């Protein structure tokens, strides 16, 4: 015979203000198998927990029901409480009489009756609980980082410095990400490349870091501590062992393609490094644009005119490093943890027809302006209008393009645009003292250390005229652009004739962020930003154990925040990899091998790939649960027609006894 203890919590007035707690306690005393019942002001307090531990010992209780808040809140706390008194932690049932009762009802009588029912059900269930034991599994002490921007670089360096192996996968030919495209950084105006390049070099030189550029993650299997990842290494057509990065090939290549790095404002050859400080400083051949590769492709069909054979790079390479035999290759690696740092791209402003829809050459995005201002950019750091190469004197900035705009499906604030526009206004004036900047803004959001001071500087010191209002239309008038806005502070429409218009385009996740999330089984929002396990308390964890997220793939943030975020993810990874084994939750599904008919309906519905096939001694193929992967969601239980699958801690028998207790009254 069980001896069940029931502990009802007042939760201050949260429960006690609505539910008549003494009445619930009294009712509990008369429930079957209940040996003891009592109330607490705050059960989660040290005093409350001590009273439970004492009662278990003194009353020789072997099962416990706690009627309090949601189990999401304190179940783990109370499991430790009963374990401290010598009980198996799974011989505990939480009855939620706060979120499910006192918070949603106002009538005290009804709420009390419902609380009594809820407690009665919990008592019936806990009577059928069994002791469960967690298991230990081993782990691979290596981390995978997806994305080599500043966040990924920081995370890689921190994990590697803690002594763990790191593989950093980057889809571009170089690491560095968006930060490498920037000229200066706010609010200190340090040169972006000057502070980023040393970190990139550190990554390349760190003995614990393996850098896989021009590579992508294809598939992820396994679970926390034991991930198995297929990585596609795209053919670079260059043997990196032989290549010295001398640059002869990319200077000789006759092909010119719009440079992605320069936002199409400059060009690059077909064999290229994206920018001078690239890491690794060795080129790749862009197969789609290489003349000889086009010739080889033509040769297969001989359709259309014969393209020229080029092979100039092969001719000039002093170390014979060009290797056209390279093929795309998929490698499989094991990891204990994964950090996703896939970053952002800027909003494509061509959807704004009223701003020209991308057809006015002198309406450019802020990232394009960064390239024009950069000394390493297509104009050598001179800001020249794309249309005619002249020096712009009247420059209009428009904030919130692709941000705070439901019309284009981007209601969120991109957080960095106010600050980088202030930087642009300051820098433009530094480039050319005759420049007059106009900034159309809705609000200047300058929350952050030294940010407000910096934003003020743009207005106070460089004479940028800030106009509060969103621009409605830009149109070409002769050589210049007419900008129609409202100064909403004075309440009158304004018109400006501009030489150059810079659109402060917002942030959105990189292409395929959603596909990567699907491969990793983590969630993402409607804009494809990845979703953290808790926006405040678990900002770099995800709902999938062992997968971490950081940087702008989670939401808009600036460089200091990205570095901090990357470091935070690294700390979580290091904590995980510092363990010698991992404890798994025993609340998983189990298969009754006698009842299973091998239909695998369970496998179809399992979101965690936790169902394996297993052959029994009598040669039947049946389902078996990988307990490390199983999250205990219970979908398989519902899908199983013969009723062979059960969920520990929530068995059909346990749930049925709750229901029966309720309906029998």
């Amino acid at each position, binding site marked *: 015979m069980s001896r069940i203890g029931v502990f009802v919590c007042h939760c201050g007035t949260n429960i006690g203000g609505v539910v008549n707690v003494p009445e619930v306690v009294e009712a509990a005393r008369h429930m079957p198998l209940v040996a003891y019942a009592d109330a607490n002001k705050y059960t989660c307090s040290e005093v409350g927990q001590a009273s439970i531990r004492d009662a278990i010992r003194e009353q020789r209780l072997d099962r416990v029901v706690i009627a309090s808040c949601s189990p999401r809140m304190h179940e783990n706390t109370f499991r430790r409480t009963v374990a401290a008194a010598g009980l198996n932690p799974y011989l505990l049932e939480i009855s939620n009489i706060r979120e499910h009762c006192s918070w949603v009802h106002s009538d005290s009588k009804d709420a009390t009756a419902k609380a009594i029912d809820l407690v009665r059900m919990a008592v019936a269930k806990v009577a059928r609980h069994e002791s469960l034991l967690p298991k230990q599994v081993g782990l691979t002490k290596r981390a995978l980082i997806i994305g080599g921007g500043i966040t990924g670089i920081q995370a890689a360096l921190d994990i590697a410095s803690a002594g763990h192996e790191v593989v950093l996968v980057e889809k571009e030919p170089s690491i560095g990400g968006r930060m490498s495209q920037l000229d200066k950084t706010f609010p200190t105006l340090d040169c972006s490349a000057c502070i980023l390049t040393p970190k990139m070099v550190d990554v390349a030189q760190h003995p614990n870091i393996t850098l896989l550029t021009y590579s992508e993650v294809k598939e992820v299997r396994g679970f926390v501590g034991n991930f198995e990842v297929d990585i596609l290494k795209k053919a670079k057509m260059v043997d990196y062992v032989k290549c010295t990065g001398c640059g002869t090939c990319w200077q000789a290549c006759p092909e010119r393609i719009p440079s992605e790095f320069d936002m199409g404002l400059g060009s690059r050859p077909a064999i290229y490094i994206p920018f001078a400080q690239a890491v690794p400083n060795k080129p790749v051949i862009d197969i789609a644009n290489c003349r000889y590769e086009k010739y080889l492709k033509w040769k297969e069909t001989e359709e259309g005119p014969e393209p020229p054979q080029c092979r100039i790079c092969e001719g000039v390479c002093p170390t014979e490093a060009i290797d056209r035999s390279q093929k795309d290759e998929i490698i499989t690696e094991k990891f204990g943890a994964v950090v996703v740092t896939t970053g952002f791209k800027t909003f494509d402003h061509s959807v704004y*027809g*009223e701003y*020209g*829809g991308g*057809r006015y050459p002198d309406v450019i995005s802020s990232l394009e302006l960064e390239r024009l201002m950069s000394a390493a950019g297509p104009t050598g750091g001179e800001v020249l209008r794309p249309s005619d190469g002249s020096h712009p004197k009247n420059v209009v900035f428009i904030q919130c393009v692709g941000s705070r705009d439901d019309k284009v499906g981007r209601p969120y604030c991109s957080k960095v645009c106010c600050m980088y526009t202030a930087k642009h206004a300051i820098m433009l004036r530094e480039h050319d003292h005759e420049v007059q900047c106009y900034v159309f803004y809705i609000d200047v959001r300058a929350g952050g250390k030294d940010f407000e001071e910096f934003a003020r500087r743009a207005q106070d010191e460089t004479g940028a005229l800030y106009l509060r209002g969103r621009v409605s*239309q*830009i*149109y*070409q*008038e*002769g050589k210049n652009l*007419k900008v129609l806005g409202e100064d909403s502070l004075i309440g009158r429409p304004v018109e400006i004739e501009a030489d150059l218009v810079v659109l402060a385009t917002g942030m959105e996740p990189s292409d395929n962020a959603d596909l990567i999330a699907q491969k990793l089984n983590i969630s993402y929002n409607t804009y494809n930003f990845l979703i953290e396990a808790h926006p405040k308390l678990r900002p770099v964890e995800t709902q999938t154990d062992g997968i971490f997220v950081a940087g702008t793939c989670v939401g808009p943030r600036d460089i200091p925040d990205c570095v901090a975020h990357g470091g935070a993810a690294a700390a979580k990874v290091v904590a995980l990899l510092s363990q010698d084994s991992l404890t798994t939750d025993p609340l998983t599904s189990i298969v009754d091998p006698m009842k299973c008919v091998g239909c695998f309906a369970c496998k179809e519905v399992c979101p965690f790939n936790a169902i394996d096939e297993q052959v029994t001694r009598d040669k039947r193929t049946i389902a078996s649960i990988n307990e490390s992967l199983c999250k205990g969601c219970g979908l398989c239980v519902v899908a199983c027609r013969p009723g062979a699958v059960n969920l520990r801690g929530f068995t059909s028998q346990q749930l049925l006894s709750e229901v029966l207790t309720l309906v029998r009254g």
Partner: protein
Amino acid sequence: MHATAAEYDVSTRLVCQKLGVELRELEDWVCCGASAAHSTDHLLSLALPAHTLKQAEEKGLPLAVPCAMCFSRLKFTLHELENKDTLALVSGAVGKELSTAVTVKPMLQVLADEDIPLPIAKPLSGLKVACYYGCLLVRPPEVVGFDDAENPQTMDHLIERLGAEAIDWGLKTSCCGAGVAFARLDVVLKLSHRILSLAQKSGADCVAVACPMCHANLDMYQKDMTVKLGWKTELPVLYFTQLMGLSLGFSPKELLLDKHITNPLPMLREKKLT
């Protein structure tokens, strides 16, 4: 259409005849009420177009609408009638059982259909045209469902098919001042002047329009613009159907090109198109 915009009426009929598009004028169409009705009485602004829609429905024909304002009001009415309660209410006002089973298209869309071959007799080579759509042909997009609301292309493509050059310019869909000409001519002058100036600055020889109201505002007041706003030249404003007619071989006289207040004939002669 029969009076101020006779040029549009006549040229549309000629072009349709030539292209084999059979037009039947609804005998009892009534005015849509324009902004006058929807500024003063919401139900009336739905009932007037609904009456016309009903006639088209009874005839079982799609409705080709030359005027942008009428098109807008008819489309808006159709859009509103999607709501069952509105349908019942407006049916009560019209005194007939209404439905939304009527196709309404702007005349521009009908005639710009690329499946209708254009037997070009005289290509309009060398003529630079600023296509002006006005506000109501393309707005609001979810109601009219016609072309791009910010940078429409239908008329541009049509004009290019006639052998002329459609220039790219930024005020294709800006407002000309619409119906406030009587009451606030100053507003119409300012708005229309801005449109004409940009068209001219962008290199246009003329402006093509698809709406009698736009035409009136852009064509009629150029002299006033000279007096009030220092508008120095004249820029002919033609209906797109007149340009079609010209390229299909009709004479300027047949197309009533001599009826405009701003005379387009000198320009056309200079371009050797008459």
